[in-house]
């Protein structure tokens, strides 16, 4: 896999459209899922997805071959998503979240049985300010310090939002024993 990406990256560095298409086909499904998790709707997800690939092709000369190429590509897409979110200025807004109005619940016997599509739906429905922090911290694995720098939000606020995000998800998942 690493060799395959190495050849494709070399082709992309030359600006060869055939290799760019191969890069797209190799990364598109996972990067589109990533974009869906950050965007407020499918249209914004498409915008982030396209801009992410354009940025990736433009900045591919900055990839030094250190670490997995896909990990480097994910960072590009995450940054692109954050840029889109900043435009909507939702990160610093004090969002009023009504924990009582949870909408559709996810029913399961044990949490392991929850389908991936159900988890995606839950993330999709999550309030934007909580969703971004939850994605960056839990799924991407960034530290609080890193997220604080990326979003320009104090660490205390991040911890609070992360905690409320977890509460929101736990409230949405109803385990029926």
């Amino acid at each position, binding site marked *: 896999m690493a060799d395959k990406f190495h050849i494709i990256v070399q082709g992309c560095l030359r600006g060869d459209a055939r290799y760019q298409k191969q890069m797209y086909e190799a990364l598109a*499904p996972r990067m589109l*899922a990533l974009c869906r998790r950050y965007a407020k709707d499918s249209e914004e997800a*498409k915008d982030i997805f396209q801009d992410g690939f*354009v940025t990736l092709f433009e900045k591919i000369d900055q990839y030094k071959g250190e670490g997995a190429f896909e990990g480097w590509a994910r960072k590009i897409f995450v940054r692109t998503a954050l840029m889109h979110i900043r435009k909507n200025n939702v990160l610093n807004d004090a969002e009023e979240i009504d924990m009582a109005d949870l909408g559709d619940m996810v029913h399961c016997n044990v949490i392991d049985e929850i389908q991936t599509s159900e988890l995606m739906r839950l993330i999709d429905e999550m309030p934007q300010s909580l969703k971004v922090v939850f994605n960056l911290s839990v799924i991407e694995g960034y530290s609080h310090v890193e997220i604080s720098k990326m979003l320009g939000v104090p660490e205390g606020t991040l911890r609070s939002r992360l905690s409320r995000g*977890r509460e929101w998800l736990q409230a949405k998942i109803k385990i029926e024993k």
Partner: protein
Amino acid sequence: MDSTKLDKIFKERLSQAECAPTDDLWQGIMHKMAVRRRRRIVFRIAGGVSAVAACLAAGLILFRGEHMSSDLPQAHSPIAESVLVEPSNEIVDDVADIRSQIESLSSVMALAQNDMPSCQSSGSGLLSAKDLLSDTPSDDVIEETQEFTSIQQETPSNSDATVADQTNNVQEFWNAIEREDAMLNQRGHAPVSVTLSTSSGARLSSVQQAAVAAPSYSPAFFSSLNAPVIEQQGDAHYSLPLTFAVRVGVPLTDQLTLAPAISYSYLETSFDALVKKEKFQGTSRQLHYVGVGLAADYNWLSLGDFLFYSKLGFNAEKCVKSRYVYGSAQVGLDVKGLQWSLLAGAGVEYKLGRNLGIYADPSLNYYFDNDQPGSIRTDHPLMVGLELGLRFNL
């Protein structure tokens, strides 16, 4: 529900989750890339045009004195007159001779008019003399007059021929003056033109520390005879030399880049000067250089958008404008030859895009003695410079 287990489930399931992209997404990416490519091209062109325009604007601001002659005092100003070139004694004597000959010619003409009061000539002077006569002349007088006139026309005497030649010389002299006046009128009545007029003795050097410059206000045949001498008194004060440059980087290898450049430099020196025994404080010598150069850059460190490099190269610069400003007057001087220099230094470039960067080059420059006008470069051949510019990497 345990939050750790919740986090684990979400991370495992969603980090590797996939969504099938629709066909139109790839077309959209290609379209966006094409749009950005066009924007980059426009940005580079705009950047290049802006850089050239900035250099031109700076040059025009510094060159503005070329068209400021109307602000200068008129010819009767004592200061302006001190700049004017006075004709040599030889020419003054010649003019005096011509004037005395004109006066003698006039007296000869008056005598002729008195002797030929009724002459029927087309000469306006003789007709006016005729008007003064009250009596009709006799036939004898008419015959004598006709005879005298025919003799004068057919066989002029030696003295008359000399007078005629001198009259022609005087006429040519005044015609020359009129031509000069006409030329000055076409130049906008410049009292002290800053148009350069090369003097054969015009030469500057840091050793000589005196300049001979000839303003072109006076008739052209005077200008080379007696040019004002601008003699430097005391120490010179140098303004910070300014250089604007545009470099084009042509990478030969990953680390070695060849960078030809076009540059514009402005040098100014202030000193007290003695001009025609009059002392002028704060006399300014302004030099404008346009040059080309070639440097080899060795890139030794790249940190993000910053690139650190060393460079070695040379420059050849031509002085396109040289001007002295003293009091309210200013004179120019043609400068021959090129200023050659070597440079070595280190620089840092910040990448504005993949092929465009802005750079700062602190460097050590050595200026050879190429018989250029005195400046900080001639007095201090080894100088530390800082060059700022835009680099287009091809």
